[in-house]
């Protein structure tokens, strides 16, 4: 007996909200990407907890796919940040207010 499943859900919910707050409140593009990472991590936590709750391995399999997705997302996201930093000289999302390429 570890803890009720609801405690894992609460922990993941708070973690997800921290990630969402980070992605909404921060203006630094790198911090926005970090917020997305925290949210993916919280989703993985729920999947592992549910995998133990229903004693089924599918949750753990899904976490492997989430890890893959996070790695791909970070690679492309950081490449995008570097490209836009070269173009505009800033990583502040508020600075990206020009529609002209």
């Amino acid at each position, binding site marked *: *007996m*570890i*803890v*009720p*499943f*609801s405690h*894992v*859900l*609460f922990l993941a*919910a*708070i*973690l997800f*909200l*921290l*990630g*969402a*707050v*980070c992605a*909404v*409140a*921060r*203006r*630094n593009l*790198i911090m926005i990407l*970090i*917020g997305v*990472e*925290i949210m993916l*991590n919280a989703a*993985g*936590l729920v999947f*592992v*907890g549910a*995998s*133990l*709750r229903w*004693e089924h*391995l599918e949750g*753990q*399999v899904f976490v*492997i*796919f989430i*890890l*893959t997705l*996070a*790695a*791909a*997302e*970070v*690679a*492309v996201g*950081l490449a*995008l*940040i*570097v*490209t836009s*930093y*070269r*173009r505009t000289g800033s990583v*502040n999302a508020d600075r990206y207010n020009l529609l002209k390429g």
Partner: protein
Amino acid sequence: MNLYAAIFYLLSVILLASTVVAVTRRDAIHAVVYLIISFIATGLIFYLLGAPFLALLEIIVYAGAIMVLFLFIVMMLRLTPSQRTWKAALSQWAPAIVLGGFSLVLAAVMIPTDPASNPALKTLTAGPRELGRFLFQKYWFPVEIASFLLLIALVGALLLGRQEKKAKKTTRQEGA
């Protein structure tokens, strides 16, 4: 409260505290370093919840590879932490805190009413052998799709890194 529950609550306190500190840091490097602590705590919770392979994968991939990639980019761009007034900070954080508070209240109402969330978790372990067998027997096709996704991400990152050089070359040709 038994030992497992005590370890779980201790790890969740470490996880939430380090994530809160990471989210509120002005300097991106500090945020990344605190986030490594957060991901290691998540890996230990995975271990506690019976997923030793995922725990190691979390520490290797998240805390190792992804966060080092973040550190590389932060150091490469040589960012300076922004200084701003508390009024601007309030206009940033107020919507986020309203969103977070509302969703937290919603979660606090919804989670206890779900009957599936009541039973206590058993201490079971699914080792790498069972997980790998299950993964490659039932989910071999998604694994192939995931590997294809990684390939596309690699090509996309390379393309995004190259594009700027090409653009410069064309402008130089236009100028000459």
